[in-house]
């Protein structure tokens, strides 16, 4: 167990370093930060002066070291546009995005768990067909389009829900549905497949032979094991949703990290873009690490097999 833990944590750290290198290369090699600071109209002399004052003329390796050092101290740089520390800008918007991601995930699970299990319990019935249809259609629907349709239908035609802003919980309903449909299809597929596999296993047959009630078999014995892979997928999906929030937040003008990312990209505010990419990737790495550890903790077979 300990060696598995160590191995998994080492991998996470290596991946984090890789991600930081990619972020650094993108913002310092593929792009000239001097132009970002001075603006597009700057002359060559201005640029040379800026490179000198900001230390951009030093070797890349030195600058990367400084970059990592600053990040370790929580300094992600200053926005070109607002001149505010980037980390503050992100942290004050993080609750909106986190709430959106959690609500969407809860919604996706609330539909996928019962529907996926029901589809596995009664294969080839209408419920199974419905589940498969939902999984296939949900995967193909462009989520920004779903968002626009929801706005037209519920916000404009029926006037039931607000369509822009993040002031109240009602503002999160349509965005959560939009982002939830994006997360749901793989969950339905996985839960259905997992339940079918578990229901065919020996211990379920034994439980049936012992006369345990079907209800108890399904919920106490089968679901518990079928749900194991769902834990890791949920973490992966949660990470995807942090990225997917950029589309949804920009449609519904939810003032979260995704909206900030989109605004910064439209205005080439490099320090903000770079910090968001790095932070969201780090959150994702930590989430998958936690999911793996949780999985190993929950499943004794994994614990011993992965020594």
């Amino acid at each position, binding site marked *: 167990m300990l060696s598995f833990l160590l191995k998994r944590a080492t*991998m996470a750290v*290596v*991946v984090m370093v*890789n*991600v930081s290198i*990619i972020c650094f290369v*993108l913002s310092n090699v*593929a*792009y000239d930060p001097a132009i970002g600071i001075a603006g597009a109209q700057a002359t060559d002399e201005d640029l040379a002066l800026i490179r000198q004052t900001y230390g951009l003329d030093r070797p890349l390796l030195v600058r990367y070291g400084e970059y990592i050092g600053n990040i370790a101290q929580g300094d992600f740089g200053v926005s070109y546009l607002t001149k505010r520390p980037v980390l503050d800008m992100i942290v004050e918007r993080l609750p909106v995005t986190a709430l959106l991601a959690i609500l969407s995930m809860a919604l996706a699970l609330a539909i996928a768990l019962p529907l996926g299990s029901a589809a596995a319990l009664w294969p080839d019935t209408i419920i199974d067909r419905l589940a498969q249809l939902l999984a*296939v*259609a949900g*995967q*193909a*629907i*462009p*989520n*920004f*389009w779903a968002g*626009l*349709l929801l*706005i*037209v239908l519920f916000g*404009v035609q029926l006037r039931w829900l607000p369509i822009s802003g993040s002031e109240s919980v009602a503002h999160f309903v349509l965005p959560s549905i939009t982002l939830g449909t994006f997360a749901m299809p793989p969950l339905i597929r996985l839960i259905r497949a997992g339940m079918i596999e578990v229901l065919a296993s020996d211990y379920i047959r034994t439980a049936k032979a012992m006369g345990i009630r079907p209800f108890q078999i399904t919920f106490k014995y089968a679901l518990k094991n079928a749900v194991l892979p769902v834990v890791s997928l949920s973490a992966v999906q949660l*990470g*995807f949703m*942090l*990225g*997917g929030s*950029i*589309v949804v937040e*920009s449609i519904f003008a939810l003032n979260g990290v995704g909206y900030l*990312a*989109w605004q910064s*990209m*439209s205005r*080439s505010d*490099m320090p903000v*873009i*770079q910090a*968001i*990419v790095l932070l*969201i*990737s780090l959150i*994702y*790495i930590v989430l*998958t690490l936690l999911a793996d550890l949780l999985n190993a903790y929950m499943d004794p077979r994994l614990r011993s097999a992965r020594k």
Partner: protein
Amino acid sequence: MTIPALTTPSLPEEETLTVRLGFWRKAIAHRTFLFSGAILLAITLVAIFAPMLAPYDPYAQNIAMRLKPPFWHDANVAEHLLGTDQLGRDYLSRLIYGARISMTIAIGATLMSAIIGITLGLVAGYFGGWIDTAISTIITTRLSMPIILIALAVVALIGPSLQVVIVVLGLLLWDQFAVVTRVATQQVAARDYVTAARVLGSSLAHILFREILPNIRAPLMVVATVEMAHAVLLEAALSFLGLGVQAPLPSWGLMLSEAKTSMFFSPWLIVLPGACLFILALAINLVGDALRDLTAGGRG
């Protein structure tokens, strides 16, 4: 090492021959495959023959004919079957040309990512050891960076265009190709015919691309469909956010973004391009599901 052409067909060739026949016989009886395959073929044909099919020039603006409704709103509008957009351009023609952009991106980005992912997967799966560890780390790194965010950031850096979108998506969508190829290669690498090829002194490229690759192509076809649909939807999202294909090109995602301001009064402007995207992505995914079904028995 090549076998002289006049010798009798060797066993593997016979095997592939029967497998193929079986595949098509099964495919013709598979309703999902026929249905989704037909839609996909139709969209491909529309994309290829767009200039012949489009009733109008998709770029021709006519301010006098702005925002004309489609035929189901007003039966008298015979001129523009699906109405016109905010610049008076014929919507049907733009939708038809939009198929070209989506298909170009789907095929271009998928080909590029297939080449990257399959090469990485073959090398990692065949050699194992520290090479495998290194490539697995690269795959994990790629997986931990959200695609849409990276794609947007990179496009914002280098400036948006159709070519940039294809290359950026091609550089980002290879992870599943690599993951699936790696596992399949590990399974196949120990087979007798691979050992035989090695003993015969075949080159590394021959072993990887001529011996192993043909035998793991079934799951890779499924991955290809998944990534094609993925590329179509990502391009639409990038263009929708203004960091993809640029105006006046008729990309379905860009059309949705342009229609955003008039969607409350002219909802068909957002319904139609979105429906096109949905149908294309659905058809590709269903073809993939059917392929998975059809090749399930013959996998590695």
